């Protein structure tokens, strides 16, 4: 469903992604972790071309990102994205945040879009906040609206960039619960997170990144209990000691 083939990316002289080969099969959940600045965000932002790549190729649901014929808007509609900082539109209600893309990109009529929006808000458990503005919602509620917005184009793939790290601890679970539900429904997901419990429960594949390279991949159970690489071990001992 998502395939990286020898992907390289630079920010100026800084080589942030180095020969990345990486694959997520349909219905799988990949969890990506690694120290700050290792290139995790950049990696998943490349998947819907929020960041351009300089060499190699990424193929998403059969569409190549480097192919000139690929319709990037169509590709983005297949891929939902959830940001660490939510990035909800502050001037729109929760429902309007969710329905904007269906209305404008899919050209749905208002009734259809509202129905879809309510259905998705119900799915993330905040249908009663449909007419609230983002500033009136808690962090956990905002992030759930953001997930509903990500689902509004009926994507085949969902990407999450540290979706819980801007949240107060007591709100982390309500967001992870929604993500678990999506995973169990068979959504293809790539998730940057350091939530080990979540990873062990839903991940099919763990990816550890450091300094722009994928250092280690593998089954989550083995990854957490017997990491092969020294750097992985060092990193895990740091995050687990918290």
């Amino acid at each position: 469903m998502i395939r990286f083939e020898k992907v390289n990316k630079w920010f100026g002289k800084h080589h942030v992604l180095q020969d990345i080969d990486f694959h997520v099969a349909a219905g799988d959940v990949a969890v990506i972790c690694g120290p700050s600045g290792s290139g995790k965000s950049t990696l998943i932002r490349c998947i819907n071309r929020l960041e351009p790549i300089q060499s190699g190729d990424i193929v998403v649901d059969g569409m190549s990102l480097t192919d000139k014929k690929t319709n990037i808007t169509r590709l983005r509609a297949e891929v939902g994205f959830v940001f660490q900082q939510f990035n909800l539109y502050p001037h729109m209600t929760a429902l309007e945040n969710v329905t904007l893309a269906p209305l404008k990109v899919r050209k749905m009529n208002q009734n259809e879009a509202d129905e879809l929006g309510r259905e998705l808000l119900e799915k993330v458990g905040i249908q009663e906040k449909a007419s609230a503005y983002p500033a009136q919602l808690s962090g956990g509620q905002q992030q759930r609206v953001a997930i509903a917005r990500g689902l509004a184009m009926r994507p085949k793939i969902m990407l999450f960039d540290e979706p819980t790290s801007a949240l107060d601890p007591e709100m982390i679970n309500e967001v992870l619960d929604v993500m678990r539900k999506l995973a169990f429904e068979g959504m293809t997901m790539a998730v940057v997170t350091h939530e080990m419990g979540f990873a062990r429960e839903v991940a099919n594949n763990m990816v550890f990144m450091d300094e722009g390279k994928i250092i280690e991949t593998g089954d989550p159970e083995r990854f957490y209990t017997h990491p092969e690489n020294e750097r992985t071990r060092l990193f895990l001992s740091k995050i687990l000691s918290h």
Partner: protein
Amino acid sequence: MWSFYFSQLADSIPFFLKGLWMTFKISGISLVLGTILGFCVGIARAGGIKPLRYLLYIYVDVMRGTPYLVQIFIVFFILPEWGIQLAAFPAAIFSLTLYAGAYICEIVAGGIEAVDEGQTEAAMATGLNRFQRTRYVVMPQAMRTILPPLVGQYVLLIKDSSIVSVIGLTDITRVGWLTVQRIPEGIMVFGLVGILYFSICYPLILLSNWFERRLRAQGG
């Protein structure tokens, strides 16, 4: 003596009203056109491709870095030498529009740049194209920052419009000049000129302050 001048001035009121109407027309039309121009240029500059951006920077900086008096002289006295002949009224509108557009561009581009980059990314990620992102996500947020300085700029531009009197347009300022030649009571004549400008500008000042307070109340 003073009361004699006063009654003479009272007789000139229709003349002053004509001047007021001229100032109204010139600044009104140029501000509408300048706002359209400023928004187009501002949006293009905030999101545009590099060569276009540099070109627009040059436009804005040249307009802002030279006095309006010089600009209107160029339009009215120098363009005709290159075969572009404009009557006084269109020359005033044309030059004031370009001048206003530059300042408004700066305000609009600033407002757009103040919108968090994450907003554009979120809109992009759901498949909105550039026009849709600008129209539905970026501009509604940018407008809140744009409105107070925009209306403040209108006040400055209305006052700058007094310069069009140098090419013979009978706006409030020129009515003042002509009147003071008959009624040598400068304080009275230009007092009235000042009051007329103030009566146009003050409502806008209040409006700008209101936008400003609303912006602060929303925590922007």
